[in-house]
């Protein structure tokens, strides 16, 4: 029924816009092929019968806020009647006429299982505004207008965009996308001594990175607290500051804080809750409660603290991830906190 030439469709014209818009237009073109007519068409079609009077149809159009309808006779499509046809009858003062007298019997139809592109071809090459949609058995299953196509494509573009945004924001696909025998992501930060204003910035970046990589909030919290304590120790106690290094692997997070002095005189003592060598000035800032190392031990699975006076300190921390906590798309963050 719709053997219309397709030399210059609207989509091809649209392609000439700008380079910037080209990406989007390409996707729109793709969608015109991908989307099936049944995905965008209007399903609950208002229909009329050949015997209905023109005035009745006018009332029906006004109530349903439509400007055309397929004409069905014993469930078979026999034509289409639009507001233009009704105007013709009114101009002749032929208000008592029936639908059968004014309908267009040359109906162009499309198939529900065809791509949206087929409907677009018809719209651009004829002046037809609405196309009845038939299924495999020639039964009328819907109607499609340009508005339906636009809405359908916009809807799909929007959900594409949202899916892309979510994926971009959450970098959790990283570990699936990159294949190796052992993949890890390493983050490094340099910590300056006595930089209380920026203290915690590295920890904040680390916690955010873990969440973006798909870590569950409890794991991110444990890492955040442990590394924050370590970062503040570098700021409060070190001579020249230090370095933080985080290695993220799908099954494990390894954190390391290293400095070159002054070193801890008595590591055993330093680990005891409440023990602190912090000055009064530092305590006024809210630190030096002597809980730092205890907090770290509480948050991570493995801690190793090596220190030599005059040489420096090396703190290593590891968190092992359980099977359901490992990084990646399959394990979206879930709030398991109570």
């Amino acid at each position: 029924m719709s053997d219309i030439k397709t030399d210059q469709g609207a989509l091809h014209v649209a392609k000439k816009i700008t380079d910037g818009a080209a990406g989007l237009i390409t996707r729109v073109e793709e969608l015109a092929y991908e989307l099936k007519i049944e995905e965008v068409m209007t399903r609950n079609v208002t229909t009329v019968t050949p015997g209905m009077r023109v005035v009745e149809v006018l009332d029906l159009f006004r109530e349903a806020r439509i400007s055309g309808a397929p004409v069905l006779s014993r469930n078979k499509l026999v034509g289409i009647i639009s507001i233009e046809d009704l105007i013709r009858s009114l101009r002749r003062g032929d208000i008592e006429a029936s639908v059968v007298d004014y309908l267009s019997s040359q109906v162009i139809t499309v198939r529900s299982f065809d791509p949206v592109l087929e409907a677009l071809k018809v719209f651009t090459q004829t002046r037809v505004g609405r196309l009845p949609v038939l299924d495999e058995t020639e039964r009328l299953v819907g109607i499609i207008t340009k508005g339906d196509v636009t809405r359908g494509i916009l809807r799909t573009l929007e959900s594409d965009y949202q899916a892309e945004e979510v994926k971009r924001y959450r970098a959790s696909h990283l570990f699936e996308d990159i294949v190796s025998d052992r993949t890890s992501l390493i983050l490094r930060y340099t910590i300056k001594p006595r930089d209380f204003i920026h203290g915690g910035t590295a920890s904040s970046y680390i916690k955010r990175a873990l969440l973006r990589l798909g870590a569950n909030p409890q794991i991110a919290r444990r890492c955040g607290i442990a590394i924050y304590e370590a970062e503040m120790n570098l700021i409060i106690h070190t001579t020249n500051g230090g370095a933080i290094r985080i290695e993220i692997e799908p099954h494990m997070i390894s954190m390391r804080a290293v400095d070159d002095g002054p070193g801890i005189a008595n590591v055993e003592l330093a680990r005891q809750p409440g023990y602190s060598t912090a000055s009064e000035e530092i305590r006024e800032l809210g630190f030096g409660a002597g809980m730092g190392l205890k907090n770290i031990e509480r948050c991570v699975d493995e801690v190793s603290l090596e220190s030599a006076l005059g040489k420096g300190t090396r703190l290593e921390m590891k968190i092992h991830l359980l099977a359901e906590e490992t990084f990646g798309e399959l394990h979206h963050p879930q709030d398991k906190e109570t």
Partner: protein
Amino acid sequence: MKLQELLKLIDGDTLTDDTDLNREVKGGCGADLMSDVLASIQPHAILLTGLCNPQVVRTAQMADVAAIVLVRGKRPPQETVELANQEGIPLISSPYGMFELCGRLYQAGLPSLEKAMTETY
């Protein structure tokens, strides 16, 4: 308890922009030493503190604190407010002292979200 309701109980004044007053607060914690906060607080608590430096916001962020209340009408330095805005953590000032505030909130049914030191992970 919603932040909105909590604000009324403590005559609180929000210092951050666009504060989400529908945010749910599950309980409370009061401390001035940040390591004490990190050691004991559970997620989604209100943090009552007398400390006003930016580290309060960093600590709150690490510990998943729902909002910070500065006791005794303290006004924090600008960098604290800026960081709180940046990290989306509501910052509130209340004229009352720590004991009074803890009492008001506890009496209104807000539980303690401080873990006792005997508890281990």
